[in-house]
Structure formats: C-alpha cells, structure tokens
C-alpha cells in the first residue's frame, strides 16, 4: 500500500483525528489555561486571551474543550476496547463451539439488542453510580452485542475452512483454533468495524453526559459541556454549540477513515465496491 493511493477524504480524516488525539494526550501542555480555574467573566465573547470565549462560570472554553477531548476520547476508547474484546471472543467461541453454547449466547444477545442501547443504559444507570468504571462497563457490554453479531458471522465462515479442519485433526484445542486460526483471519473485517463502533461510543457517551447521567462535574466531557452552556443559547451565546461541533467533527473525521478502510477491505475481497 503506498501513501499516494490514500484518497484525499481519508487524509483529512486521518489528520483531524490525529490532531484531536494529540490535543487529548498533551492537554496540560496544549491548553492555555487550567481546566477548572475561573479566568474571566461569564460567557465572554472570543478575544485574544480567550480564543473561544469563556463558559457559564467564566472558565476558558478552549482549555475546557481540550481537557474534555481527553475524557471523551479516553472513555470511548476504553469502552470500544471492552466491547471488541468481549464481543469478538464470545462471537468466535459461539462459532467454534456451536451447539447449545452458540444457542444460549445468540439468544441472549438478541434479547439485549431488543432494547435500544440508550434506554437500557438509562435503566441501568438509575441504580448504579455514574463513575468512570461503571460507564465504560455499561457502554462496553451493550455495544459488545453488535460486535458479537459481526464476529460470529465472520467466524462461522472461517470455521469451515480446510486449515481449521487441519488444526482440529492434529489435535489443537478450542483456544488454539479461536486465537491462532480464526482471530488472524477475522481481523480485517473487525478492524473496519472498529471506527464505526468508536463513533457510536462517542455519541452515546455524549448523549448520556448531555442528559446529566454520564460524566459528573467538576470533570467534564464534551456532552456535559453542552449541558453546562445550553442556557446561553436563548441569549444568543453560542458557547454550547462549540463542544457539540467538536463531537461532530471528531465523528466525521473517524467516519472518513473508517469509510476508506471499509472500501479497501471490500476491494480486497473482490467485491464491486459500490
């Protein structure tokens, strides 16, 4: 694969995504002001000291956005990692073991998917505290159902290949078949799905925080920043639109990259690519 063959839209996506990640990782060095320090008046318009103005308590909005990127990206990434490991391992297991294991797991996943993710997350968060660990677990487990479906479908196809049969005949166990035969061959379609799941987690986390049930103050992610500043909209203060736009921009950037990877993998399979 040469760098030249990457389309321009994918380049834009890659560069923007890397910028977001860079800002998140090096937040204390990039941000002009500390995260929670009050440095000005309430909802000041943008000026040379405060590039994007200040928020509902007089904190620097740009700095809050950069620190918010940290929380948003970290939690979404952890939840995606959890949903992928859980979903793909269970999906492969179901495909390899078959029989009642497959039956029980698949019916359970069907049941979980019958409830919309946001609604079920709200139901569970009504009794659990909104801590970081709880959020990652709830988001990860609920999203693992989607990964499970994909992983199982891919693994069922691979499971009937001759090389898997050969591995079985020489006496390898289920663990070997799952991790050494199926995983390497199922990786490409799963990686293509990774970006889409990550976007979904970002949108879910933002929605939860916006509803006041995600990240709790004084910590802030982009969703809770929208919530903090939403009252300004009525007075013509657009502060709440900025974190919302940041979510949209990050989601679009990742989508552009994911789209390109998805097209690449369908090309590899000889699909029509349309």
């Amino acid at each position, binding site marked *: 694969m040469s760098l030249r063959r990457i389309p321009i839209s994918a380049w834009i996506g890659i560069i923007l995504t890397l910028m977001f990640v860079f800002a998140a990782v090096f937040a204390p060095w990039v941000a002009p002001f500390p995260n929670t320090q009050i440095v000005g008046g309430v909802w000041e318009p943008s000026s040379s000291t405060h590039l994007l103005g200040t928020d509902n308590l007089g904190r620097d909005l740009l700095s809050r956005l950069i620190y918010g990127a940290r929380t948003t990206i970290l939690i979404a990434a952890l939840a995606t990692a959890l949903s992928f490991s859980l979903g793909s391992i269970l999906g492969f297991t179901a495909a390899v073991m078959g029989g009642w294991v497959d039956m029980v797991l698949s019916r359970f996943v069907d049941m979980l998917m019958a409830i919309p993710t946001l609604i079920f997350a709200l139901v569970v968060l009504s*009794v659990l505290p909104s801590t970081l660990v709880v959020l990652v677990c709830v988001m990860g487990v609920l999203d693992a159902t989607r990964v499970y479906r994909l992983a199982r479908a891919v693994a069922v196809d691979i499971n009937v290949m001759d090389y898997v049969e050969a591995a079985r005949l020489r006496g390898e166990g289920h663990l070997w078949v799952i991790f050494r035969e199926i995983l390497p061959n199922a990786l490409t379609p799963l990686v293509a799905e990774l970006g889409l799941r990550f976007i979904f987690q970002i949108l879910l986390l933002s*929605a939860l925080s916006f509803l006041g049930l995600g990240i709790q103050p004084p910590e802030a992610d982009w969703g809770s920043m929208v919530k903090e500043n939403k009252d300004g909209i009525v007075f013509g203060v657009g502060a709440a639109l900025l974190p919302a736009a940041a979510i949209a921009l990050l989601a679009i950037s990742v989508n552009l990259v994911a789209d390109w990877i998805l097209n690449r993998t369908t090309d590899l399979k000889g699909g029509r690519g349309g």
Partner: protein
Amino acid sequence: MRGAVAKLIAQRVGLGLLLLFAVSLLIFVGTQILPGDVAQSILGQTATPQALANLREKLGLNEPAYMRYLSWLGGVVTGDLGTSLTSGQNIAATIGPRLKNTLFLAGVAAIIAVPLAILLGLLAVRFRGRWPDKLISGATLASISLPEFFIGYLLIYFVAVKLGWFTSVSTVYDGMGFGARLNAVALPAATLTLVVLAHMMRMTRAAILNVMQSAYIETAELKGLSQFRVILRHAFPNAIAPIVNVVMLNLAYLVVGVVVVEVIFVYPGMGQFLVDHVAKRDVPVVQAAGLIFAAVFIGLNIVADVVSILANPRLRHPR
C-alpha cells in the same frame, strides 16, 4: 395460500411477544439484582438505618426477587404500573398524556421524514454517480455523525433566537389547538427528521440499486423506457420490502432519538419523563418507561417483519 401467510405472521407476532416477556425480565434484573442495595443507592450514603428499612419495606425488597418480578409483571399485564417513589402518584396515569405527546412528536417527524427520504433516495438512484447523488451521499455521511443536540441547538440558535420564527421551548398543554400544537413541535420534529433522514435515504438508495442490477431492469431499459419510469414502475415495487424494513428500523431509532430531543426542547413527553426519573433514581418509573420504550421498539420491528412477508409475492402466491 392465505393460511401460510397467516401462520408466518402469527409466528412473528408470537416471537415478538416472547421477546417482550424476556425484555421485561431483563429490565427487572437490570434494576433490582445488580450488586449493591437499591434502597441504599436511592437514598445515598447518608441515609439512616430506619429510612433504609422503611424504603425496603415499601419496595418489597424483603421478599425474594422472583416474587417481586411476578407481582410487577402481573401489575404490568393488567395495566397497573405501580406508584412513583418520588411523587407517590400512579405511574400509568402520569405516563398516559406524556406518551400521547411523544407519539404526536414522533408521528409528525415520521410523516415528514419518510416520504422525503424515499423521494431523495429515488433521486439519488436516478442521478447515480452524478452531482445530486454525490451531494446527497456527502450530506448523509456528515449527518450520520452529528449528535442530536448539535442539530437541535443549531436550529434553536439560528431559527428561534436569531430569526425568531419559533419559540426555543416547546410548551404544550391540555386543550391546546391542533395548529398551535403543530407550531410548538415544529423545531423538535425538524431535528428528528434531520437525524433519521440521512440513514433512511441511504438505505433506500442501496435497496433500489440492488434491484437495479436484475435482468428485468435491463429488459425494461432496452425496451426504451425512461430512466425514471424504470425506477418507479419496475425497481421500486421490488424494493418495497427492504425499504419498509429500513423505514421501520428508523422509526424505532426515532423513538429513541426522542429522548435527547425532548430534553433539548423541554418537551413534556416520555423521554424527558424517563431522564428526570433516572436522575431521581425512581426505580418503578424507570422500569415502566423503559418497558414502554422497548415495547414500541419491538412492535415496530414486528411490523417491519410482517410487511416484508406481505410484500413478498412468492409467499402470497405459492406455486
């Protein structure tokens, strides 16, 4: 044969009811048997032992979990959703008008979004590969990534605050005229439409394009029919089943999107009701609202299945 179709439909509906039953169990388990004490998490760490004991008594926490589930399920089946912990009111009576409000909002959004999405999908196929198609595809890619509150607050900021065409808060009350009600839900309905439009249109386009590769489409083209006639008369009827599926899935998504949109516009519907009571940790209300949302979601999926059975001529006229 009519019997075969009826049997298939009965099977789907039965399966849906079974699923709904399983979901009620899941919602109950999700709120009751999680690690930790429900009474403790409702009242917080500072609660006195006496208050905890009282609440446990009130919630029936001293009984075994399966007994509580059975009595809850028995109540739900007979239309009794229990009483709210925070207000002490009957939940079924409070939820009724809110459910109506939500269905009205979702209905208005659906009436705008569905025909528009199908029309745009047809246009994208008619001009596939040319600029209208590319424009529509690009716009959908962008709008799939936009969170509901971004669209909602953009509309409030520009249409309500800057232009002053609508109010930023959608107040509805009893005895409000139909026109006034429609005016109140204009912005939230527009937001919901924008949220589901893109996805619905993209899938409509994919469904029709899939049919367009069949041999009979080539025949119709070679007969010299106009492009639009080929799409409308030959491709569209065969794409109805997948399109209806897409529409139903998106309506189900609309019902979920309603939660966030209602909070943005302070609209007194089910979504805001649910969110308020999650924050108050009012478990009986959360269970009831969660179950209703899940029931609507499952119901729409059943309708999608049934319509695709009915739209399939092979099932309607078996050899």
